[in-house]
């Protein structure tokens, strides 16, 4: 079943260009200048039930604008979309009951009241069956280990604690689609792992479809098999994470640990990232890996060797740079 389908989805903003300085401000009172910004251009995508899709892109690439259109907050300038079979910006009640949007920097919980009060309100707003509500609250608070925080005013919680409760609130009504915008922003490693575990479990047990944006590649690597990359409002990649690594990560990182110091000239024809003591770190093309291994086999007293793909951040950066240079 297709959960999200877009066809040339585009959003253009008209922004006011304010000249710098006081004189500029006065001039703009009489002669305002506007500029059209293409935040999102002709996005075509299909996301199927049960997929966890990572939505990546640099700041201002159009990720959040796309999420806002898919959740019905924004009307597109052009194109169309269906989400769970509904046109999102028509905002029918049944559609609003079927999905959740969680934004890392915005709260849906009542600031001065305990989260349990907000949960109760969610029960009424989404008309959740009381038995199911109790079961969901129990399960989710156990997964996130936040049962002791339910009766504490939200304003007294740490960011990580609040985010866990935000996510619980967004899952109480069993949404079929979860749109997450930077859900792990500001979270420590332990909280991030708990969130990954919970999202994965929900995806597996309830077939919930997840589209998430994040600047933490760990989120993407842990959860998403498929990624979408957007740059300058245009989709530049849609495919498997491994495919992206294969396409833009045509290099390998090799780390060799020797018992003794190694002379620099042994690996001089390769890019040397680090040679300290007995440790050598090289960046080589995939084709050169056998040559490196041949040299290593002739060396004495090799303690350890590892061959890895470059970090995903590096791969994505290459993709952005390549797209930018093409559009110039």
């Amino acid at each position, binding site marked *: 079943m297709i959960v999200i389908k877009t066809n040339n989805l585009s959003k253009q903003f008209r922004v006011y260009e304010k000249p710098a300085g006081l004189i500029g401000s006065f001039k703009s009172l009489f002669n305002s200048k506007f500029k059209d910004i293409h935040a999102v251009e002709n996005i075509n995508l299909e996301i199927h039930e049960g997929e966890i899709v990572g939505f990546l892109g640099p700041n201002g690439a159009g990720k959040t604008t796309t999420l806002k259109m898919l*959740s019905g*907050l924004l009307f597109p300038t052009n194109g169309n979309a269906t989400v769970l079979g509904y046109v999102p910006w028509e905002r029918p009640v049944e559609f609003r009951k079927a999905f959740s949007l969680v934004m890392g920097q*915005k709260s849906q919980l009542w600031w001065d009241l305990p989260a349990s009060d907000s949960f109760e309100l969610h029960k009424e707003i989404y008309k959740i069956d009381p038995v199911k509500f109790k079961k969901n609250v129990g399960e989710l608070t156990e997964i996130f280990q936040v049962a002791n925080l339910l009766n504490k005013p939200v304003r007294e919680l740490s960011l990580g604690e609040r985010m866990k409760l935000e996510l619980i609130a967004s899952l109480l009504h069993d949404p079929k689609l979860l749109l997450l915008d930077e859900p792990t922003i500001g979270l420590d490693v332990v909280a991030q792992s708990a969130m990954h575990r919970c999202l994965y479990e929900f995806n597996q047990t309830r077939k919930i479809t997840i589209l998430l944006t994040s600047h933490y590649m760990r989120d993407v690597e842990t959860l998403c098999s498929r990624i979408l990359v957007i740059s300058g409002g245009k989709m530049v990649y849609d495919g498997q994470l491994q495919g992206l690594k294969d396409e833009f990560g045509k290099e390998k990182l090799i780390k060799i640990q020797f018992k003794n110091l190694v002379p620099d000239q042994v690996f001089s024809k390769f890019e040397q990232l680090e040679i300290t003591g007995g440790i050598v770190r090289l960046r080589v093309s995939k084709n050169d890996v056998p040559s490196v291994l041949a040299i290593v086999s002739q060396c004495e007293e090799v303690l350890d060797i590892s061959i890895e793909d470059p970090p995903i951040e590096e791969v994505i950066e290459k993709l952005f740079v390549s797209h930018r240079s093409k559009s110039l």
Partner: protein
Amino acid sequence: MNKYFNIARLSLKERLTYRGDFLFSSFLRFLPMITSILLWKSVYSSSEQDSLSGFSFKQVIAYLLLVNISRMFSSMPGLATNLARDVREGSIKKYLLQPIDLIGYLMSYRIAHKAAYISTSLVPYIILFGSCASFFDTFPTPVGCAYFILSLMLAFVIGFYFEVCLGMLSFWILEVTSLLYVVTTLSFFLSGHLIPLDLLDTTGWLDVLKNLPFAYLAYFPAAIFLQKISDDDLLLRFFIGVLWALFFFLLSRVILYFGLRKYSAYGA
């Protein structure tokens, strides 16, 4: 309906979180009354007349006391400014994403705040009115009291939808503080909050003021209580008031409809 009842319940709970500030602000509202009484005393003594446009000094003070009751229902502190801030900062999204009606939500929230405010102000108001009973020459009949209560409900509805309309203008103009300041100042005068509208010479076009929506926010309930409106006129005035309520209700829906199309979801 249950969800709106729950919103009201939580709003009440939230309102009572800051009890100190809440009680303090409830009591401080009485202070301007003292300056008003002193001001009108000097106006009447310098005019050397017992009555101005049919209002004796005692009636003016009774009017000002009653206007406080009207404003207790019709004033909507923070409604338009908070709504404008939610639009500007993107917090409005939480109402737009959930299966909930934004205006219904705001109404539930406001009813809860009014209930909290009115119930905590009840005792001080009883004391105030008790000590100022000598300013009231007559009291309305039970039917008059029913009309008075109805006019207070009408003041709440008109005041609410009027402020919602103003706040939602922020879909087009992000910063509405100055506009709100101008409208609030105008409303303060045109609603009869400061001076009974009868004291303005109403032989000419100024009579129009009594039919403007502002008059229903302060003047109308007070005038009913003081029996300044004839029985023949009363139903017509109510009819016009209901039309205004309906007008602002529909206008708020239209503004929301088009506003959402203009909405840029900044900061969300």
